[in-house]
């Protein structure tokens, strides 16, 4: 195989060729490059490169993801997600940094991990500072505690 040397220099642990179909879950500590079809989860602790000819049906998770092909499912990038002009994502995305190039297709909901935290904080009900009304309180004190009078 004459091309071996060239494609091995890409420093990728797993490469899925253009006419190859995978069924099941693919997990790698190293980087993954997909040019074929995957029916299942793709997970990498490093980079995930989804080539123009790639078709993935299932969630994808990696530190950095570059999408030039098609993904139908959740896309979760720990650091960065970049959707190239030929990239098509039909599903939600969750990425710290998101780059969508002109021409790319994205149908779904986008959540940024930092923003999601802030939104969750904002959605929490505020602690009410209700003051206990005691029997010995005067009518002014009760009205004050119930917020009838605005504080100056």
């Amino acid at each position, binding site marked *: *195989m004459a091309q071996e040397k060239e*494609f091995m220099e890409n420093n990728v642990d797993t490469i899925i060729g253009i*006419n*190859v*179909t*995978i*069924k099941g879950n693919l997990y790698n500590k190293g980087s993954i490059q997909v*040019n074929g079809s995957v029916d299942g989860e793709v997970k990498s602790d490093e980079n995930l490169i989804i080539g123009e000819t790639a078709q993935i049906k299932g969630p994808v998770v990696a530190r950095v993801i570059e999408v030039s092909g098609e993904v139908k499912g959740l896309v979760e990038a720990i650091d960065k997600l970049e959707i190239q002009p030929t990239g098509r994502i039909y599903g939600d995305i969750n990425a710290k940094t998101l780059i969508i190039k002109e021409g790319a297709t994205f149908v779904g909901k986008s959540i940024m991990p930092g923003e999601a935290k802030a939104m969750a904080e904002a959605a929490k009900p505020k602690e009410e500072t209700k003051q206990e009304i005691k029997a010995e309180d005067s009518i002014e004190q009760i009205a004050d505690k119930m917020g009838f009078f605005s504080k100056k």
Partner: protein
Amino acid sequence: MYYYIFDIKKCKKRTLVDDIKNYLSTLGISGEFAYPSAAYTTEELVDLGLSKKYNTIVGIGGDEIANKIAAKLCGNSAALGIIPLEASSDLEDLIGAKNWKEAAENLRFRKINEIKIGKTANGSAFLTNLSLDLKIPTEVTIEFKDFLVQAKASALTISNFNPTIEKIGPDYLDLILESVDPHDSAILSKISLFFGGKKNENANMSLFRGRSLRLFTNTQVPLTAGGEIIAKTPQLIETSDDNLRLIVGKKSLYKCQE
């Protein structure tokens, strides 16, 4: 100390046998010489050498004899030495010797590298590559632990050692697959190329890593190592549980991420 199993068929010149013997004597590592024949197979000679308490069994020849001795010595305290004669360049890179003289010198220094070997379910072994002997592109299914790979393969090699690929772990095999479009006929692709269609060869290449895999084809296809058929599909292929003590030189290209 040294038990040499000499594959005479690999000696193009009759004088080479004497040249090697004399050189080994000069280096002070001469020993007993045995020759595989109809009476004694390579495997039987290894057993004989071990029964005589030799701690180094040396195969003089190509990949074929090296693989046979490796299969017998895996998990044994005796070390394997290889003096290559018409061996593959991958085997030469594994032991770090480009010719028999360099290999003989490596034997003298006896630097040992403990490695895993590739094994098939029928008990055969391969130190470097195991290839699917394909005459025409063939549908293959490869079963790994968590996923299945399906493709029409034009070439498929399972490597225990390949100098162009860094192993991700000592007990991992690398599967290199070259695929073709399953719906594309050879004539159509030629027409496409004639009209300026591009043949993206790199995109047809796949690389998978695994400790164990099962290989299936629609019809039975031979699996070859060092030019010899050692198994047929369907076949279970995995790394050995035990280590092989292999004598290597400083120039050995064996490297592993872990």
